[in-house]
């Protein structure tokens, strides 16, 4: 059986962390990724850039609407995910707009963030 583990935290709390504490947390994430890879659990996984880099795509009446931010309606629930490679945000928006449920709900696009042992961005 495959499972998706979603990671949630308050960005404001992360923002208040010292740079060292933040780098330590990122190092722990890298190490844990290796641990579960060795144990055979890891299929994939990435950190994400913060929510202000998110873009939400909806298609209504055949028209694509693009807005800033992770503004899924609170009444909408997570239903699935696509992990894509795209040339740039416009390319990603085009792919996202083609996802059939974009006509019903919304698709949130978030860039992947590279974890590193030091100098992590927030």
């Amino acid at each position: 059986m495959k499972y998706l583990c979603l990671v949630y935290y308050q960005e404001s709390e992360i923002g208040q962390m010292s740079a060292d504490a933040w780098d330590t947390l990122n190092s722990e994430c890298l190490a844990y990724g290796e641990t579960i890879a060795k144990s055979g659990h890891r299929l994939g996984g990435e950190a994400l850039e913060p929510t202000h880099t998110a873009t939400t795509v909806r298609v209504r009446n055949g028209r694509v609407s693009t807005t800033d931010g992770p503004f899924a309606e609170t009444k909408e629930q997570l239903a699935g995910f696509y992990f894509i490679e795209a040339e740039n945000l416009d390319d990603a928006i085009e792919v996202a707009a083609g996802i059939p449920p974009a006509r019903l709900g919304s698709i949130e696009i978030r860039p992947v963030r590279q974890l590193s042992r030091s100098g992590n961005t927030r």
Partner: protein
Amino acid sequence: MPQQDTQQIRDTVDAIYRAESRRVLATLIRLLGDFDLAEEALHEAFRAAIKQWPDDGVPANPRAWLVSTGRFKAVDEMRRTARFDPLDDAVAERLAGEAGDMSTLMDDELEDDRLRLIFTCCHPALPSDAQVALTLREVCGLTTEEIARAFLTAAPTLAQRIVRAKNKIKVARIPYEVPERDALAQRLDNVLRVIYLVFNEGYSASSGASLTRSDLSEEAIRLGRLLVELLPEPEAMGLLALMLLQESRRAARASPDGELILLDAQDRSLWNRAMIAEGTQLMTRALMSRRFGPYTLQAAIACVHAEASEPGATDWAEIVGLYDLLLRIEPSPVVELNRAVAVAMRDGPAAGLGLIDALLARGDLADYHLAHAARADFCRRLGRTGEAREAYERALALTQVEPERRFLQGRLNELAH
């Protein structure tokens, strides 16, 4: 070199900065792939110009010289700091490896860069207020402080907005491109919306003591002109026409002490005829393309007003017809309200009141002060004083702009007599 010549060169550099800095920046952003690096490179290039031009003379093509120098300085800087970041090193090598002769830069290419910059700053994946701030900062070259003052925002808040927007452009990889043909129409709508937002903020400030902040309107018109020059689409012309026709009434729409003067009471000799002529010509060109949209139609309505030598000569039937067209392509309660006012002018206040009451009953405009102000006006003209007073009071409670408040209070006082 004599002191006088040095001063002359400085003046030349200043003039070139005003005329060329945005073009040079737009190209540097493309070449360096980063807003902050490009801004730094732009300043380095002008610093070098001030230092070198007094001895070497002003180059034949200052624009190409500045782009070339800016890029060279940026690559140099990247190489210097590269030992800390191998990724930058790779970028620096790639940049240095590209064909380096900037004198061959085509002017067409540079103009494309300005358009790229506009579309990137107005990308719909950026927050709306950030699109406005970024456009004024990067395309118009206003300082953060100037933008903050114009929008009555604290400078640090505005600076943060711009930093975040640039960060999103970089991290989410918003492309530095003019959208392809099929996406162009929708993206152009957004660019026009941003320009019109800037114009309206200058034309009728949303709060504060002064009715207009004319600098923003001028900036918006400048942007509109630039866009028409770079991308002569009918709606871009329509928007420029609309802004010019509205701006033409600026001197007439407020009294010397800042009181609001409505269209029918304005001194029409104060209307700027040159702007009206230019606006009318642009509007006509846009209409003839048959690919026009809401901005062109609004410009056409403004044009009908401009053609009337006195309020009584206004062709209200024509205006109602244009509103009907506008409602068909872009239905909105505010357009319905404006149409109701035009209908009242054509058929009398009772006809207008019926339309407005139906609109208010739907609840769309319940919190829009101008809907209540229009209702108050119709009731006043129909002699329904009690209802008029109630509606004026409702309108008064809904607006924060001082001259509008004084105007409504004045009407209320008249009713009391």
